[in-house]
């Protein structure tokens, strides 16, 4: 996935001189995960900016650049430090268009590695996409593999509004996938039906997709259940139509979320199923999620994040309900 995102950055910077990249250690060092590899060498330090250590400053100056017509792709080194920049996200990125009735807008991408399971230090393992998604005027997208990462990043850069681009670092180097020669442009706001099925819908996103697919094959191997799997890709706007269509067909649904259980994206998915497909439900929608506790330090993080077994059990429970 690192290469997918990197490819999109190279392509977009090549295509549009207004695009620039900024953040802590994104230049000479090529990013702590090497997502910005090769950019500094190719485009120079004016377009690939090693910023001072200040998240609000990074996003705040990116807002200024975007207002002046540039297209910054700003990085938060880890999502755990992005809260320091929330003032600009909530106060400006989400509002400038509304504030000026379209006269000014903030077309930027706020990239951030997020998520757990990589034995990292405190503050380096959380998934808080739901907090951003609650803000009107902000789009929040999460890729699940190299190909859609590249297509989503391309779309995010070309999007006329602020897109929060959250990168599941557990998937950074998890697997390889061919990407097409030509850039692809993903439609932000559309979910992807990864596999079709008729008895159960499983909805997930980010690093949980691979685990979900594993769990799904296990379940399918054991009991011939026909499972539909949806990769949300866009947390906000959320693709209610695709969700509703699927759940109306299957009557059963499990949502798999890496974040703590309460006030997360899964709750919103459930609320939308409530709105659009409640009377089709044959069982409560299952929520497989992390617990409402502070992420344990990595020596004890096992079983905190949902694993294949948890997902499998969640599916069985909902199927057997």
């Amino acid at each position, binding site marked *: 996935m690192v290469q997918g995102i990197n490819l999109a950055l190279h392509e977009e910077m090549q295509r549009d001189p207004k695009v620039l990249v900024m953040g802590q250690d994104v230049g000479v060092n090529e990013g702590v995960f090497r997502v910005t590899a090769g950019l500094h060498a190719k485009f120079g330090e004016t377009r690939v900016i090693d*910023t001072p250590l200040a998240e609000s*400053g990074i996003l705040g100056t990116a807002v200024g*650049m975007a207002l*002046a017509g540039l297209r910054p792709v700003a990085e938060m080194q880890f999502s755990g430090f992005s809260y320091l920049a929330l003032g600009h996200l909530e106060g400006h990125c989400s509002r400038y268009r*509304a504030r000026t009735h379209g006269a000014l*807008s903030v077309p930027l991408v706020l990239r951030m590695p997020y998520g757990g399971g990589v034995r990292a230090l405190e503050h380096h393992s959380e998934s808080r996409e739901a907090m951003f998604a609650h803000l009107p005027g902000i*789009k929040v997208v999460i890729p699940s593999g190299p190909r859609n990462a590249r297509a989503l990043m391309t779309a995010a850069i070309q999007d006329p509004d602020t897109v929060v681009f959250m990168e599941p670092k557990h998937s950074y180097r998890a697997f390889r996938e061919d990407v097409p020669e030509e850039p692809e442009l993903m439609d932000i706001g559309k979910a992807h039906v990864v596999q079709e099925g008729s008895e159960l819908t499983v909805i997930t996103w980010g690093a949980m997709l691979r685990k979900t697919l594993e769990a799904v094959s296990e379940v399918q191997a054991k009991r011939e259940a026909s499972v539909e799997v949806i990769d949300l890709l866009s947390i906000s706007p959320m693709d*209610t139509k695709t969700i509703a269509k699927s759940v109306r067909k299957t009557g059963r649904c499990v949502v798999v979320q890496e974040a703590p259980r309460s006030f997360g994206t899964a709750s919103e998915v459930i609320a939308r199923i409530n709105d659009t497909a409640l009377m089709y439900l044959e069982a409560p929608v299952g929520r497989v999620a992390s617990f409402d506790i502070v992420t344990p330090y990595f020596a004890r993080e096992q079983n905190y994040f949902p694993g294949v077994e948890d997902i499998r059990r969640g599916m069985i429970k909902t199927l057997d309900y």
Partner: protein
Amino acid sequence: MPLKNAHKFTVPHLQVLSEKGTLDKKLDPGLSETQLLRLYRAMTLAREADQRMLRLQRQGRMGTFSPSTGQEAAACGPMLALSERDWLVPAFRELGAMLMRGVPLHRILLFWGGWEEGNVFPGVERTLPIAVIVASQIPHAAGVAYSLKYRGEKDAAVVCYFGDGATSEGDFHEGMNFAAVWKAPVVFICQNNHWAISTPQEKQTGSKTFAQKAIAYGIPGIQVDGNDPLAMYKATRDALDRANNGEGPTMIEALTYRVSMHTTADDPSKYRDTAEVEVWKSRDPLIRLRNLLNERGLWGEEKEAALLAEIKGEIDAEVRIYEHGIEARSDIAFDHVFASPGVELEEQRAAFLESRGGGSTNA
């Protein structure tokens, strides 16, 4: 290298036109008659508009607003130095600056009247709207300035205003630091009006001046008599020259005073002495500039009366536009969440319109 005073720093203080009206010849920026008259008109317009807004607010014809009476020199002086290529990044107490920029008064009335249209300035380029989140405009200014450098626009810079209270915010620090590291073409103007709502300088900072905060960023800081419009002009002109020469940002502290309330919802008698206010009232920047004009034979009672009448007419006309001229489609907010609303938002718009019985109304 034992104990020694290895690094020395100074913060100059600038005054061109003294309170008594004496002009420092050596520092005189040599403004033309036209420029002086433009400045005086702008300051007077700002004062009169401010007073009118106070009345409109008291009459319930406008919302809460933050008066700028007494700060006209700090707001207007710098603007005389700006070209159309320069950007203006205001806070919320720079009425005079925005008017000089060409923002029509009715737009400002619309802002305080609760209409987003008050942030739309047709025909006025490179001007950001009022920033309500204190200090948040400072990194924006640094970013805009970076974009000028990025594009090689050597004839353009950014002028960014903020208050004394704003200097306590992290965004002040981060914005100044980014601008300094980038040597970005930006002039930071701190209107030290001595109060941040009820908070006086000694509760706001441990530093004697706000200008010395520039030292932290390795950029020049200068303290200016903020009720001296010529000094404000000169300091800005010099800073813009530095910016255009690629020498980076400058910070100007304008020593002035908020003679009125913080906003119309505020009661300053709770926290400050009227004696202090009276002292500052006697330092009225309008009077100071008028005295110079008088002395130069450019002004007189007649001209003053004519100007006031003209300005009154202008303000009347703007108030009329404000009160009658705005199309008020109630669902317009749905248009501008994103460049295009998408399915979900269109569904919500329909629900919204249904909830108010459909159709659009005028306020």
